[in-house]
């Protein structure tokens, strides 16, 4: 337990030197790097806080933009609904117009079809009536009836109008013209002579007459003077009758 003053003083000096050494080479560097790390952490935290703030701002901005977008979307939907309504109204109008036109066209078509059908029915009725009349008249066709038609023919020839007679005379002036007389029944010589006289009177000259029988005439006569044909028989009368009915229909 010796006390040495040299050691005592040197220990004091040594400790003070050691304090400086450790402060210079240990504490300051270590505390410095810890402080730098702390500053880095603080900077990181500040950056994180700033980024969080920016993120919040962006989030708020995004929410606002989204709200605006929703409003714009709703407005656009409303406009679209209005446009669709207008377009639907227009299309409905066009459709109604087209339906009306189609209905009118169908009505006209139906009317025409009905008219055609009615006409066909009428023609069929006329044809049936004519056939019925022809069959009936065919059963009634006798020389007696033809005699009456002969009288009627003579009457018609004598009662021709003046301009008709001139036209017939002009035709008869053609050289080589031959008159043709067809009858359903055979004409006797008396009636042939009487008829030739009546024709000469109409044509104004004496022309040769060719007589022939045509049962299709049913009863009566058909006289041909060139292009002129005079009908006085039941077949042609029925044709005229049918044609008159058709024209009347």
């Amino acid at each position, binding site marked *: 337990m010796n006390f*040495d*003053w*040299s050691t005592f003083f040197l220990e004091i000096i040594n400790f003070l030197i050691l*304090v400086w050494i450790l402060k210079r080479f240990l504490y300051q560097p270590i505390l410095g*790097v*810890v402080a730098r790390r702390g500053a880095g952490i603080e900077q990181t935290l500040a950056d994180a806080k700033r980024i969080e703030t920016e993120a919040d701002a962006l989030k708020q901005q995004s929410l606002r933009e989204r709200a605006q977008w929703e409003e714009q979307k709703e407005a656009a939907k409303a406009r679209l609904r209005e446009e669709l309504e207008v377009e639907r109204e227009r299309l409905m109008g066009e459709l109604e117009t087209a339906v009306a036109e189609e209905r009118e066209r169908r009505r006209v078509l139906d009317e025409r079809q009905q008219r055609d059908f009615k006409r066909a029915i009428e023609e069929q009725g006329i044809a049936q009536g004519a056939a019925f009349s022809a069959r009936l008249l065919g059963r009634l066709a006798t020389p007696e009836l033809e005699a009456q038609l002969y009288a009627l023919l003579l009457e018609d020839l004598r009662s021709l109008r003046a301009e008709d007679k001139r036209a017939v005379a002009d035709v008869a002036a053609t050289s080589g013209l031959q008159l043709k007389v067809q009858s359903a029944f055979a004409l006797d010589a008396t009636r042939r002579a009487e008829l030739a006289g009546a024709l000469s009177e109409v044509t104004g000259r004496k022309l040769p007459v060719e007589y022939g029988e045509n049962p299709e005439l049913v009863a009566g006569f058909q006289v041909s003077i060139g292009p002129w044909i005079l009908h006085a028989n039941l077949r042609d009368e029925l044709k005229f009758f049918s044609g008159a009915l058709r024209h009347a229909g």
Partner: protein
Amino acid sequence: MVLFKMGPFAITSIVMTTWLIMLALGVFSWLATRNLTLDPGPLQAMLEGVVSAMEESIYAVLPDRAQQLLPFIGTLWIYIVLANLVGVLPHLHAPTGNLSVTAGLALIVFLSVHWFGIRSEGLRRYFRHYIIPNPILLPFHLISEITRTVALAVRLFGNIMSLEMAALLVLLVAGLLAPVPLLMLHIVESLVQAYIFGMLALIYVAGAMQSQQNLELDDKGDGNE
């Protein structure tokens, strides 16, 4: 044991051991802190842990003066730990087992208490606390200052010297490996004694730096009463 003389100073083996500790600490600190990075390796992490633990211990006593006191208190802890543990090595004696060394450290603590107290409070305000609340207490304050300094020196010296002595006696009586448990106790005792010495020094310094504050608080307490 005097090795050689340097002017008026006799260089003993204790001083030489202290220089070796200083050299080792200086070289290690320089090498270890040359390339510090923000992403520490194992050694840097260990050093940061040690320094941070010391700073936090000081911060717990003096929150606003932790970095100011760290070099002094931290060096006390580091140096005393190493000086205590050197005695475990063969052919070396712990410097702290010498009363001259511990007295020198205690004197440094004694002077540091007044140095930090005067720097903190000012000369007049600092010395005023010796005569407050009553000048009659001045002798008791002075005796307290001396006795606690002597106690610092003798406590550390007595513990370390007795451990070395006990290990030597056990070695002489019981044989080669018998003192091993005692050496393990030496390690624990070295850490404890270093902590006690440094913590007492910290408390003394903190008391000096906060002396005026304590007095003002006492005055306010008296006024309230």
